[in-house]
């Protein structure tokens, strides 16, 4: 199983993602974002957390326009899994691979702490190893994590059961307590919390590991 972890200027969680993916059996390569990429032998593409391009203009906006994002879009269309975590989620909304936008937290503060995360759907490739409605302990670290979408989009997300994770204690003002959403084909997931930082023995929680294990089980089967 092969994973490609993109590294944008300002990404900072590439290795955290690598450790978590390697732990469930992926071979990982960290791919610099400045040139085109061939994802044909890759099962999962990860857009990691961080502050690509210094969050200039809007979080994720400049990264979303890089040529490599055309390759990501093509790979997603071909059914490869794409996981955007934190800044990766922001890049996915800015590149329209997922709907909506991530705005400044309502409290204006950068929030860096563990949150209660509810598994709203466990029928996803990214969440099928979790118990239904499981409550997880996963850290967030962001300033622009406040999920926003127009009422029609929100209604569609709910009707199509595309909200996979919701906050139990909404730290940022996100509409409908949304912490993570998938595309309709269930091969693209964006989420603000950091499952890769709640995965290994030395982390304070290991509740994020099953997300990576879910993907590994789906790809390996």
């Amino acid at each position: 199983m092969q994973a490609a972890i993109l590294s944008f200027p300002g990404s900072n969680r590439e290795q955290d993602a690598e450790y978590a993916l390697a732990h469930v059996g992926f071979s990982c390569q960290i791919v610099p974002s400045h040139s085109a990429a061939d994802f044909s032998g890759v099962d999962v593409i990860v857009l990691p957390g961080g502050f690509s391009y210094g969050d200039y203009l809007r979080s994720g906006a400049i990264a979303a326009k890089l040529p490599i994002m055309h390759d990501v879009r093509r790979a997603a269309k071909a059914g490869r899994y794409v996981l955007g975590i934190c800044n990766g989620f922001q890049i996915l909304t800015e590149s329209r691979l997922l709907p909506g936008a991530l705005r400044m937290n309502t409290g204006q503060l950068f929030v860096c702490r563990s949150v209660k995360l509810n598994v709203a759907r466990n029928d996803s490739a990214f969440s099928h190893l979790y118990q239904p409605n499981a409550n997880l302990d996963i850290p967030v670290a962001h300033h622009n994590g406040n999920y926003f979408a127009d009422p029609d989009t929100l209604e569609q997300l709910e009707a199509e059961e595309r909200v996979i994770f919701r906050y139990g204690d909404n730290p940022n003002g996100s509409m409908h307590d949304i912490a993570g959403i998938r595309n309709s084909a269930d091969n693209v997931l964006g989420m603000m919390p950091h499952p890769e930082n709640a995965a290994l023995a030395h982390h304070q929680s290991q509740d994020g590991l099953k997300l990576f294990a879910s993907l590994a089980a789906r790809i390996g089967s």
Partner: protein
Amino acid sequence: MTEYRIAVQVSLRPDILDPAGRAAEKSLQSMGFAARDARIGKTITLTLDAADAAEAEAKAEQMADQLLANPVMENCSITVTPRM
């Protein structure tokens, strides 16, 4: 070709809470100003060569649509001025 100065003014849509604007407004109020409805936006200014003002405006709109503003949450207004 004429040189045009472009200003793209980006603001959060009025129905969207602007936490930074709210904070600035509260600070102004605590200083004794009767300020209301503070909103924080941004202006991107740039120079562009175009055949005429219409082309400069069209290009500026494309730049705003494709990168400078996110229509999901932002509005923008564009001014185009020939550089003398």
